């Protein structure tokens, strides 16, 4: 904007000493810089390491430090470099049913846990969203409160609760509900409990965000037009909270597929999840190339739900005017 100024009058400005063009460049640069930093971060600490993992997945295991044959190193011709590529590790994943089963088990466990977390989290989020507004920050805080303790310790604590002589069994036997301790520890049930417990806040928070901004007069309007309370919920509240449901499910499902700590601590030795398989390949077998291949496949497996998630978010933003 230009302001007409009488000749001889000076308009004092902040950056008087600097020429106009340099200010423009600085501003353009600083706005880019804001985006550049996180991108550089992702490049350095995600993309480059991932490229290295992909590279390792194409090599052969060997007794050396590091324990794999060099691939794409040195300045040989392209053909020579490509010849060093080995798909053996990926073939190996298809030949041994162990890996396929581990992937399937992981996805199934993650999916079941996600549904359970939704069933527990939805009423919780709904309750918080409908609570008196003065009470909501406190209730939200309580949802997030477990994050203040180390994840590992919290999962470890579940052992004390779930083991045969643990708190849960002692309590149930004390009130006479059971006379034999329940065998929950080292079963899939323990894994479900662990995952639902650990990832519940990730389910509750997006659900709360979706439910909280909903206009309550919509429910009244539905009732006014002939809906009972429950049919108003299924026809209005539930469909309108769908973006929150999708976000919450993705936030639970994606990390749950690759979960290692919970199956390792609560699921015992016989549980077959891909995170545990990966750990075994890497640390027990010292087979870096195969474990890299496992990791690459796991990532590809997760890219699909992430893309669905992002698309849903984009659609939601579009709808949000």
């Amino acid at each position, binding site marked *: 904007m230009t302001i007409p100024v009488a000749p001889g009058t000076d308009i004092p400005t902040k950056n008087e000493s600097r020429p106009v063009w340099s200010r423009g460049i600085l501003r353009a640069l600083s706005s880019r810089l804001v985006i550049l930093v996180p991108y550089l971060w992702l490049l350095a600490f995600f993309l480059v390491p991932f490229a290295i993992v992909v590279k390792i997945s194409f090599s052969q295991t060997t007794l050396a430090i590091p324990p794999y044959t060099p691939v794409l190193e040195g300045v040989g011709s392209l053909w020579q470099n490509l010849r060093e590529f080995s798909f053996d590790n990926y073939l190996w994943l298809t030949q041994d049913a162990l890996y396929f089963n581990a992937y399937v088990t992981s996805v199934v466990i993650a999916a079941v846990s996600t549904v359970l977390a939704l069933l527990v989290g939805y009423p919780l989020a709904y309750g918080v969203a409908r609570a008196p507004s003065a009470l909501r920050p406190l209730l939200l805080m309580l949802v997030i409160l477990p994050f203040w303790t180390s994840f590992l310790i919290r999962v470890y604590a579940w052992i004390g609760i779930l083991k045969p002589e643990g708190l849960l069994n002692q309590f149930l036997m004390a009130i006479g509900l059971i006379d034999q301790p329940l065998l929950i520890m080292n079963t899939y049930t323990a894994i479900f409990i662990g995952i639902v417990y650990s990832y519940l806040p990730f389910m509750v928070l997006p659900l709360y965000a979706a439910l909280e901004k909903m*206009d309550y*007069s919509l429910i009244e309007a539905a*009732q006014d037009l002939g809906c009972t309370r429950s049919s108003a919920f299924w026809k209005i509240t539930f469909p*309108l909270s769908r973006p929150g449901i999708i976000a919450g499910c993705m936030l639970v499902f994606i990390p749950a597929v690759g979960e290692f700590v919970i199956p390792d601590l609560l699921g015992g030795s016989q549980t077959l999840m891909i995170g545990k398989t990966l750990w075994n390949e890497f640390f027990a077998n010292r087979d870096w190339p195969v474990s890299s291949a496992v990791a690459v496949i796991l990532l590809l497996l997760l890219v699909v739900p992430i893309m669905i998630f992002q698309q849903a978010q984009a659609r939601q933003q579009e709808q949000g005017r």
Partner: protein
Amino acid sequence: MALQSLNSIRRGFEPWNDPAARPYIHFDRVTKKFGDFAAVNDLSLTIFEREFFALLGASGCGKSTLLRMLAGFEEPTSGRILLDGQDLRGVPPYRRPVNMMFQSYALFPHMTVEKNIAFGLKQDGMPAADIAARVAEMLRLVKLEEFAKRKPHQLSGGQRQRVALARSVAKRPKVLLLDEPLGALDKKLREETQFELMDLQQDLGLTFLVVTHDQEEAMTMADRIAILDKGEVMQVATPPEIYEAPGSRFVADFVGSVNLFQGQVTRRDAGRAEIAGPGLVIHTANPGDAEQGKTVHYAIRPEKIRLSSFPPENARANAAQGEIYDIAYLGDVTIYNVKLDSGQIVKSTVINSQRSADDPLTWGDRAWIAFQPDSGVVLTR
């Protein structure tokens, strides 16, 4: 009396004056308390079938609570609400034969205009073909045929208002409740929509109960208005009655602008009274229930006060002298604030087409105010 002829300004419809008419909606000594606060306090009100009834009051006067109790979102703490003879206590909102148009419109954002309108009909289990026909009819009624497939966020404010209206009348309720139906519209659209609403009410033959804080809206649309304050009814009357014969100082002051003179009743004859106020003696032909010796208020509307630089020719006219203190030119009218010699400031509205060019009054001029004995009313409350 002149006032009586004003009562039936609209289509000779006045069941409230017919002792045989049965009330359609009856609030019978209804009280609603939220904690210690009584939003509605021992309120009784009767509304007749096909009436366009307005609840007018400032925010917090209990008008919305009254509406929500009729819709079933709130239960009265005590008292009964009868609709067409049926006691509504305990009847859930979805079983009440009333529909509400919400202030926020409360359109379902995930449904198209069509689906929004069809929503209530589907709940009733109406056959699909009938629903389609009714929806088409409603869309035609509110002139939104070409917007049937749009979602609410793709519509303008005025269009959304019409969808909300169509959705609430689609079920042909016994009573349509409208909560500030025009509150979110701009002034011009509001004025147009007022007449559309009146036409719609006539065409459908429904009973409308509208809540508003906008007196112009209530005056324009309603057959009768109930003025509410602090959960109580101050007056129920037709718009001309409310304006010309307010029952209390609160109503006189709340509806339109008014000049109030305080004075003592010095003479009380049949059909007339004399009130001695500061600086002027008022003769009135509408003495109300003024009693000799009592201190009362005399209320007169600004447009009934004539302004002139000469004293009135008629010696019996009520008159006082003062100084032009402020002038507000509003286009159609000009408002003069006259500071009387008694110190009281009196408002006089002059229609600009009648403002005489040979008697130009301006700031600081000495001027006379004058009004007829039948122009104002005496208020004892």
